[in-house]
């Protein structure tokens, strides 16, 4: 199996100091430690700085449209459930443009690991507010400051029934790597909201800002929904990290009769075997 470094390909086009570097390295280490061969892993992403990740990790990659990282991941899982499918994109892509897919794939519960790079700002389009920007943040578009309360991704995921809900910070790489491994191994939809600084456009939620606030709360029971919801709601002076909730439920795949046995992608087919379909029309 390759070492972590072998998963790192190409020169990332991110700003120096970007939180994405640590997330990329944590992912490479997680894949290496899980001994997942690159050809058995698929990373689906949308558009944005975070969504460039398929170009920088040795694996299969589907770098699709803005907001649409989840739908192709679901489709790929149907075609070949043997692939380890990871969905990775930013906060704007996932919680804004792709909000509908976020909600409904939690309901579906496919076996996907979803890593959201949440820097609370739009990077690629140069600094507009994202759905998770803190109120008051001024930008070139939100000139009077952000008026709308932020979307709470973990709270939303919990009430929609997500089985694995976690928060990490790019500045806590070991914890991030371990949580990624747990999410990949989780049977069902697993969300990690990964806090990361944007060195170019977010002058409020900086590395130091996060560093001062993050902490690891005691989580005795990962199946305690109310405790998970309480942790998901904590924001401001103290920001909790960790796996808030971890309770599997039946997956999308388990409800599909066609998904047992050989992947649909590789099954043979002969149209002549299907002529019996006509019977019901006689």
């Amino acid at each position, binding site marked *: 199996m390759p070492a972590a470094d072998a998963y790192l390909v*190409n020169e990332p086009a991110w700003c120096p100091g970007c939180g994405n570097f640590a997330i990329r390295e944590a992912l490479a280490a997680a894949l290496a430690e899980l001994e997942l061969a690159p050809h058995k892993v698929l990373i689906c992403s949308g558009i944005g700085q975070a969504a460039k990740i398929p170009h920088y990790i040795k694996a299969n*990659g589907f770098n*699709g449209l803005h907001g649409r990282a989840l739908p192709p991941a*679901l489709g*790929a899982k*149907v075609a070949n459930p043997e692939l380890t499918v990871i969905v990775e994109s930013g906060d704007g892509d996932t919680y804004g443009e792709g909000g509908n897919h976020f909600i409904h794939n939690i309901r579906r519960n496919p076996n996907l690991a979803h890593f959201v790079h949440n820097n609370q700002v739009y990077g690629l389009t140069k600094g507009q507010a994202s759905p998770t920007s803190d109120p008051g943040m001024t930008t070139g578009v939100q000139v009077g400051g952000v008026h709308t309360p932020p979307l709470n991704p973990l709270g939303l995921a919990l009430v929609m029934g997500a089985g694995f809900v976690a928060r990490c910070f790019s500045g806590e790489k070991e914890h991030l790597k371990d949580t990624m491994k747990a999410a990949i191994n989780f049977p069902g939809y697993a969300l990690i909201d990964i806090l990361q600084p944007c060195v170019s456009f977010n002058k409020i939620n900086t590395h130091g800002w996060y560093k001062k606030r993050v902490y690891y709360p005691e989580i005795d029971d990962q199946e305690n929904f109310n405790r998970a919801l309480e942790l998901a709601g904590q924001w401001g002076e103290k920001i909790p990290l960790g796996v808030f909730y971890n309770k599997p439920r039946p997956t999308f795949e388990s409800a599909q009769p066609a998904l047992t046995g050989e992947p649909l992608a590789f099954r043979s087919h002969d149209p002549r075997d299907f002529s019996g379909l*006509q019977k019901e029309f006689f």
Partner: protein
Amino acid sequence: MDINILVGGAAGQGMDTVMNLIGKTLARDGFKLIYSKDYMSRVRGGHNFSQLRISAKTPWSAAAGTDILVALNEETYTLHQDRLSSPGRVIYDPDQFSLPENETRGVPVALKELAVEAGGKVMSNTVAVGALLLLLGLKTEPVEKLLGEMFAGKEKVITGNIAALKAGYDAASSFCRSCFTMPDRGEGEKLFIDGNQVLGMSALASGCRFLSAYPMTPSTGIMNYLAAKSTDYPLVVEQAEDEIAAINMALGASYAGARALTVTSGGGFSLMVEGLSLAGMIETPLVIIVGMRPGPATGLPTRTEQGDLDFVLHAGHGEFPRAILSATSHEDAFYRINKAFELADRFQTPVVFLSDQNFADTHRTVDPFDFSRLDFNRYLLQEGNLESPYMRYRITDDGVSPRALPGQFAGETVLVDSDEHDQLGNIVEGAEERLNMADKRMRKAAGLAAEMDEPDHYGDPHPEMLLLGWGSTYGVLRETVDALSGAGLKAALLHFSDIYPLPRKRLLSLLSETRISFCVENNATGQLAGLIRRETGHQIDRRINKYDGRPFTAAEIIKEVENHAGS
């Protein structure tokens, strides 16, 4: 002689039950039928009707006249009595409404009362079927057999329905025993099937493994058909949260190796357009069935139109090759959908099949399909030809890059990207790389063009009068040409199944020798005529357009042709 039956009532009164029982029974006996629906966008109430035409010659369109009117409510009689032929008959329930005193064609049958006696008023329509059988001079036994199959295991339902059927038969017998003569029948059992069922069956037999779609009339029937099969066949059907998800799910499944399909109508396709462009950019096979209905916006949701040809021709930002197919008939559609999947896989690009409400909802009797004529080739990279590292977008002469699936080859990964990319799939911005990749993609258009079937030429081999059309108008245009030829005119039809890239050989040859050409389309602007103009420079002489949401009748087209032919 043809026999035309019209069953009408409010939505929810079960016109379908009557037509399916009669239609299927007649199809088993080899009769040739067409059964079309006219329905409103509501679940209860309003006025819906279905028409069944039985003919010795294959019937291609619903007739303008009616011989037997089954009026499940008074409105049906009021709206349709003027099209009733003079030896015609009206089956109605005298407990629900009365016919005018001077109406001599009534066949009163106490539909509701007899149904209640047989076991429940839900069987009123079965009573009507019994009365219909008597009028047609047919026996009840074949329908009894069919009822037994439909409700297998539910003895009470079967017994009740058979009693209702016989009660209707007996009630009508004092009025009109065998007052209609059935047309000659054909040879052998026939399938009785609607357009959506043909599309779904062909997709499944063509190896489609994934359908993701959002319900939308008139394509929902394809979802229903395939969903019912997904418990027993290697197929997953997923109802997406929106059409954006539907097309992106399908692309993910196709990328990972499953033949994938999405189905919609114009409004849903509007949401899919960015995904269509993605399919072109990442060169991932995809078949999209667009069942057209009148727009703009929600338009007339349950009616028919051919208004989206220009839309699918131009949909999607940027430039990429695509194919657009339609079908002349149910028979043609079965093989055409297979072709759509084959083209999509071979040229790694989106293929749109244009259906419409008229085709989707119309049942016809057809001879059994030949499944051995369906192809299944995936055009995937074989191990012996693998060069490492695998390059998903290898530059080739014909523009088609050897396609591998993720997980197919150990040590090789497959990267697709909606940004402009190099041969490996990585993001690039260089001018030369951009040109190389754009040219590679567009080279596939020539390959697609070579695969397009020439349009179907029906009628006079050297016509003076040429009618042109595409898609679901084939039947009515055939009948138009038959009528014109019968009147001594040298008329022919040139009808397109494969529309884009536009096959032009037969078109140019016929246009050069014909005196006058008419492009007949169920839209307001003449979109095929426009495409022909753009692609060949030829101006079609006359455009005949209908855009009231209803299909053409032959009489309407003939009238238009006669109006223009002299000028």
